[in-house]
């Protein structure tokens, strides 16, 4: 088949694959983005077993189950074909997402609720582990050989766009349930959080319909008609040195660094802006939304460039730029919101104190809300909550303090600019990686071989970034940006391995 003929049908292939993958990422992220609301509904902190299930749901789905999903569905994809395998992952992901949105709360059905959430979250992790490799392989095997970077880049945009849509849907639902904003947020926390989960099911149905009408990948079909498909993809992928060495190279020389850059540029950046810079809920999310919107086209730009100059140096330049500039960029984010570097308009400061008597007690809950305004337009709300004891001399040892800052317009856009740069690094490392991984392995074991390093790199190394970074800040409390040590070290090791061991191939004859 000529390249021109292949190009004609490729947009249908890209559309069908990308939509499904986009939905899977969306499904996976809404759980993470709504973790606090879900925890209140299903995992009450007062109950240690429920809290335990919560921790399991958070950690197990992303870090253990994803690589297992890669193995299970990768094997299936090499045995029975790409089309039916990534159709199955879509059904599993969509079904479990819808189911999470339907589970009655812990208050209604007790322990069954958190157990069901955990089970469906694990299925989500498994399905995600199988989806990406299938979609990337499916598109790459339809694409003209000299434009694999360009065509697979559309799949590469889906992870970031999935995050973008999940943030957008959550913000919209949170604000449109009632004309009164406070009531709207209360309704969202009560039942409205289920809407983003239900929306997913409609999208999944459309995507299943489209995918069902697609044909199997031509390269896989050819292999099957010749009786050359793999009998044991796991053994051939990981039991043979010639392939295992490439799996290890893909992991340590590419996906490991790509994963930490991806998660630092998006998840950790958002978490840093909200939890360290103390920027309020909506702004911390819309800053990321704008950054994603401006940077997403560059996935296609850099992947297309990789068709011309090779994948290696584009990916490695993203890692290099991240390594040398992370400290500066995150310090800049911190400084932008740092109230100590601003001039407060003291005359405008408002302090409100409310005292609520605790039922069946003589003590009260005291809340002191201090609203401060600064000359550059930033405002800050400091809410201090403690117990006012009726016994004289008894005071709360550690009052709960919550700080929420609303940035001025110029500072807001400065943060958008910095987040844009962080996501630009993501586009450098992530844009060409699907084509890079696809070209590293032969068709018969491609799905299995590329899925595992991808999901260890992204699920384990990348997915752990926010946790390890936050953990480091609790160990070295005086250094606000100490969390960056983890992605910088991992990206540096990966950069060295990638630079020394990976070849900058531009494959003109991929048809094996």
């Amino acid at each position: 088949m000529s390249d021109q003929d292949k190009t004609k049908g490729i947009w249908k292939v890209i559309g069908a694959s990308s939509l499904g993958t986009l939905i899977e990422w969306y499904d996976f992220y809404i759980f993470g983005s709504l973790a606090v609301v879900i925890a209140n509904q299903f995992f009450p902190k007062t109950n240690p077993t429920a809290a335990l299930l919560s921790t399991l749901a958070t950690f197990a789905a992303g870090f253990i189950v994803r690589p297992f999903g890669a193995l299970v569905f990768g094997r299936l994809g090499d045995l029975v074909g790409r089309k039916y395998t990534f159709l199955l992952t879509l059904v599993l992901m969509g079904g479990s997402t819808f189911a999470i949105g339907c589970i009655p709360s812990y208050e209604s059905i007790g322990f069954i609720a958190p157990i069901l959430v955990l089970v469906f979250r694990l299925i989500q992790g498994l399905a995600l582990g199988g989806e990406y490799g299938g979609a990337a392989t499916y598109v790459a095997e339809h694409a003209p050989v000299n434009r694999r970077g360009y065509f697979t880049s559309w799949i590469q945009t889906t992870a970031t766009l999935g995050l973008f849509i999940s943030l957008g849907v959550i913000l919209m639902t949170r604000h449109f349930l009632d004309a009164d904003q406070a009531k709207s947020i209360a309704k969202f926390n009560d039942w409205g959080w289920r809407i983003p989960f239900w929306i997913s099911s409609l999208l999944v149905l459309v995507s299943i319909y489209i995918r069902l009408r697609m044909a199997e990948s031509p390269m896989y079909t050819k292999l099957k008609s010749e009786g050359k498909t793999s009998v044991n993809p796991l053994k051939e992928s990981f039991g043979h040195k010639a392939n295992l060495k490439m799996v290890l190279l893909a992991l340590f020389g590419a996906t490991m660094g790509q994963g930490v850059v991806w998660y630092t540029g998006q998840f950790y950046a958002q978490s840093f802006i909200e939890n360290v810079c103390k920027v309020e809920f909506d702004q911390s999310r819309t800053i990321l939304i704008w950054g994603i919107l401006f940077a997403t086209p560059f996935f296609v730009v850099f992947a297309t460039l990789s068709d011309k100059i090779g994948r290696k140096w584009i990916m490695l330049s993203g890692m290099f730029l991240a390594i040398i500039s992370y400290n500066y960029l995150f310090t800049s984010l911190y400084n932008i919101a740092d109230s100590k570097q601003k001039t407060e308009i003291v005359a405008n400061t408002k302090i409100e104190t409310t005292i609520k008597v605790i039922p069946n007690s003589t003590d009260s809950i005291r809340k002191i809300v201090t609203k401060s305004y600064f000359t550059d337009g930033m405002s800050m709300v400091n809410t201090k909550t403690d117990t006012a004891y009726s016994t004289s001399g008894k005071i709360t040892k550690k009052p709960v303090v919550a700080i929420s800052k609303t940035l001025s317009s110029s500072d807001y856009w400065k943060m958008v600019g910095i987040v844009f740069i962080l996501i630009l690094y993501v586009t450098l490392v992530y844009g060409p990686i699907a084509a890079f991984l696809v070209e590293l392995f032969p068709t018969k074991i491609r799905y299995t071989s590329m899925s595992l390093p991808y999901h260890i790199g992204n699920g384990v190394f990348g997915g752990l970034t926010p946790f390890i970074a936050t953990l480091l800040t609790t160990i070295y409390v005086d250094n606000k940006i100490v969390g960056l040590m983890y992605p910088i070290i991992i990206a540096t090791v990966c950069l060295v391995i990638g630079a020394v061991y990976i070849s900058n191939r531009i494959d003109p004859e991929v048809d094996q």
Partner: protein
Amino acid sequence: MNALKKYLGLVWIVLGPLAIHYLLQTASSEIAKKPGNDTMIQWGVFITVFYPIAIGFILFGLYALEGNYDHIPEKSAELVDYESKPL
């Protein structure tokens, strides 16, 4: 370049056990500092996932030292039928 690949292989072989040691040491001190299910699960997961990865890293170093990365396929025609070349 091939000599560099081999010498660096030694570095990766040493880094693997060092990473495991650091992980176990940090895990035990953090669990001792903050005992509880959350901390145990968290560090249990870290060890479960990073332990095999560290072994993979040592294996990678070993392959590099043996010269298995001296030539990396440049064209897909070089992607071999692995069935005939067992580990």
